[in-house]
């Protein structure tokens, strides 16, 4: 047996194999952070969000949006502390008498990070390509009302809409309105995430390196015009985590300076007690609600829906399940947004009432306990969803008016089914823009309701139309309030909590409270690191 030399040969072959495999693997496109770059003032952030595409024409998710607001600007932007779109790349926007044409005057002297000048051609190019690319992310849906964009010289553009839209300034501030360089971005396809040389914008940072699923590296943009506030740090690295527990350990260990979003309620509570770490909290615009199918028994009966509204244990869910990290919600538009009304509070009271629920069921001659199946998903709205629905089941069963069965389905199945098969089911909403309209139209319009719960009310449709064409903010707010009262009375959806914006930072990170507001945007450029 010549085992020894053969084993040696094998070992050598094995090592050679590894080296060959290593050399054979192609290199990812990368650009060093910048040689000699000081990392002392670079902020290290962690997140469980994911990035689908950096190119604004190819994403419609929060994780990608967080990256994009660092690289791109809009004609109008949502600046810190305000929910009203303010001039950014535009000096202002006005509409015609029918609110179907919006014209924006553009700032002069603005440059992209690659040095190209910003003009109206870039604006037209940016909007046209979103529609032309028609990306599967569905981002084009935000500007589906846009018929054409015309330029009026290099520094003025007009948006021609299909129907009147008073909220167009908000649309300009969404991901669909991010302005790209027409000399660099293709008209009919999106740029790859790793194409950092071409992913240029006018925003506070440039993307230096992007490794999908791992990290994004940003350096301050020397051509940034400062419209959204000065860059207060030397750069930013976002590390992507698939599990919040791993991110929590990294934060505790000091491997990252801060984390924006998301931890479980228990993890937030634990981090709040950790030394050298602070949890910052402000109002949020994410909401959770129970959809009731108005075409399926038992929720096709208005009395049953009203009884559920009377019994909803909002405060118990907020305090017991979420440790106070969410607050009870009594209307679809969350508290803090202009036009919000505690509609469900006014109609059903601010606290659960078994007596009133019993009365409404008795008046409608509904036999109790009413069998009710509540559907929820464990794989989309966080681990706490299970406790949330257990709390709901406990409260409803305790009233002896309902006999609740809980059922769950994995998100891919759940999201496809919704109102087509479920009678009562959990959903959450994060707005496209911080305006009450975005909490009304997608849920209550006969044609725009995406929940498939069968709700349709001509009076509601008329109010929505009135709101969309409103010429003054006051008229719009009046319509929004009217819609909320109709929604509460019909109760096809029961809102029950709104989130808070939670950011966790180590003590070396300053200015975090500056970016915590109802816009729910992480403006990293405002933060500094000591």
């Amino acid at each position, binding site marked *: *047996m010549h*085992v*020894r030399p053969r*084993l040696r040969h*094998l070992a050598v072959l094995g090592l050679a194999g*590894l*080296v060959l495999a*290593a050399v054979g*693997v*192609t*290199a*990812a496109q*990368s650009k*060093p952070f910048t040689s000699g770059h000081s*990392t002392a003032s*670079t902020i*290290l952030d962690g997140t469980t969000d*994911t990035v689908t*595409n950096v190119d604004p024409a*190819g994403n*419609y998710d929060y994780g990608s949006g967080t990256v994009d607001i660092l690289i791109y600007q809009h004609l109008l932007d949502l600046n810190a502390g305000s929910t009203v779109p303010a001039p950014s790349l535009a000096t202002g926007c006005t509409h015609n008498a029918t609110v179907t044409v919006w014209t924006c005057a553009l700032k002069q002297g603005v440059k992209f990070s690659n040095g190209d000048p910003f003009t109206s051609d870039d604006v037209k190019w940016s909007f046209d390509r979103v529609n032309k690319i028609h990306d*599967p*992310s*569905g981002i084009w*849906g935000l500007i589906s009302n846009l018929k054409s964009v015309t330029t009026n010289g290099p520094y003025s553009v007009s948006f021609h809409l299909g129907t009147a839209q008073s909220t167009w300034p908000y649309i300009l501030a969404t991901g669909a309105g991010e302005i790209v360089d027409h000399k660099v971005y293709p008209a009919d396809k*999106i740029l790859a*995430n790793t194409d950092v040389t071409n992913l240029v914008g006018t925003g506070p940072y440039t993307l*230096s*390196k992007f*490794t*999908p*699923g*791992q*990290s994004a*590296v940003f350096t301050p943009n020397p051509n940034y015009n400062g419209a959204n506030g000065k860059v207060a740090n030397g750069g930013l*690295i976002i*590390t992507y*985590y*698939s*599990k919040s*527990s*791993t*991110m929590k*350990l*990294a934060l505790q*260990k000091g*491997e990252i300076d801060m984390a924006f979003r998301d931890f479980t309620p228990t993890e937030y509570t634990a981090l709040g007690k950790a030394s050298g770490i602070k949890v910052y909290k402000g109002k949020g615009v994410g909401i959770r609600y129970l959809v009731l199918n108005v075409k399926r028994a038992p929720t096709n009966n208005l009395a049953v829906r009203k009884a559920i509204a009377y019994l909803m244990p909002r405060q118990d869910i907020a305090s017991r399940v979420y440790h106070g990290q969410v607050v009870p919600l009594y209307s679809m538009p969350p508290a803090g947004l202009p036009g919000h009304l505690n509609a469900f509070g006014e109609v059903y009271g601010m606290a659960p009432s078994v007596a009133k629920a019993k009365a409404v069921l008795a008046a409608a001659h509904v036999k109790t306990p009413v069998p009710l199946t509540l559907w929820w998903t464990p*794989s*989309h709205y966080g681990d706490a969803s299970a406790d949330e629905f257990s709390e709901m089941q406990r409260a409803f069963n305790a009233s002896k008016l309902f006999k609740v069965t809980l059922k769950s389905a994995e*998100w*891919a*199945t*759940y*999201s*496809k089914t*919704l109102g*087509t098969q479920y009678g009562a089911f959990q*959903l959450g909403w994060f707005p496209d823009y911080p305006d009450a309209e975005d909490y009304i139209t997608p849920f209550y319009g006969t044609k*725009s309701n*995406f929940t498939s719960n069968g709700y349709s009310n001509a009076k509601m449709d008329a109010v929505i139309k009135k709101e969309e064409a409103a010429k003054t903010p006051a008229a719009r707010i009046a319509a929004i309030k009217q819609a909320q009262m109709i929604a509460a009375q019909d109760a096809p959806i029961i809102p029950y909590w709104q989130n808070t914006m939670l950011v966790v930072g180590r003590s070396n990170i300053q200015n975090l409270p500056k970016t915590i507001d109802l816009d729910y945007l992480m403006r990293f450029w405002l933060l500094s690191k000591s």
Partner: protein
Amino acid sequence: MSQTGPSLKRYAITRLALVVPMVFILLTLVFLLMRVAPGNPVSASLGGHAPPAVIKAISHQLGYDKPIYEQYGHYLGQIVRGNFGTTISDRRSVGSIILVNGAATLELTFFAMIIAIVVGMLVGLVSGRFRDSPIDAGGRLFGIVVYATPVFFLGLLAQLVFGIWLGWLPTSDQASPVTQALMQTHTNIYFVDAIIDGNWTALKDVVEHLVLPATTLGIVYGGVFIRLIRVNVIRTLKEDYIEAARARGINERAVVYHHAFRNALVPVITVVGLQLALLLGGAILTETTFNWPGLGHELYVYLQNRDYAAVQGIVVVFALVVVAASIVIDFANAFIDPRVRY
């Protein structure tokens, strides 16, 4: 050797020919399993905020409403052309995922395998040498416990003890954020990249990040080697040639380490190949626990998004690696031990 040559050649051809139907069956199974599961990438990403009409239109645009046999034909056609497709959720080429993230998995599993073999050899040899002693009992207990421990549980414990309590090692990722930002990627195997660049600071950082995940995965799979090597050492110590060596007055240490141990290693080569499949399975959990950006980590993410192309590509790569490894191990066995006949 002259008789072994032709039979080995015939065996090699047969083994390689069998790979084709095996891969075909695998491709079909993965394709069907993904389609049988309810939901699709469009509803997973847009459901809950886009109207059904929009979801339907996009599903149509991507061809998910076509009959399954048409989708299957298209899929096979792409594979034949060496095109694994593009992910739906983040528009990455599956080929690049396999190369980039596969490099991270290669790095992790390579070092985990080394740790598994080293731990297995040391503990197995000592246990076998001191059979039925307290040392042997300890070694066997260690082997059983580590093998029975779920890899994610051991990983979490390691993170807590060595990362948080003692503060010795990083708890996650392939390298620190700053190293990742500053490092030039040549191969995506950070260990190799740091050496290529002569960046010793980065190498130190990379090794520190590698220790916990590789050790966790390696120790768990070392349990198998412990038991195997112990049994083989005990068996070879009873062989006639060992008795003969002792009778010739050769030192006991030399008998054990030079004669018994080397021969006890031969069957381990076969098990190393078989263990690779388990190691890749364990890598999925290890990578998720340590946020290690390997193929297992990506599989976890893409499965949640029902990303057909990505899941199909990654699973097929895993399977091909296992098939290739088993063939290599068979050939290696024949190379090491010419007595092997097929």
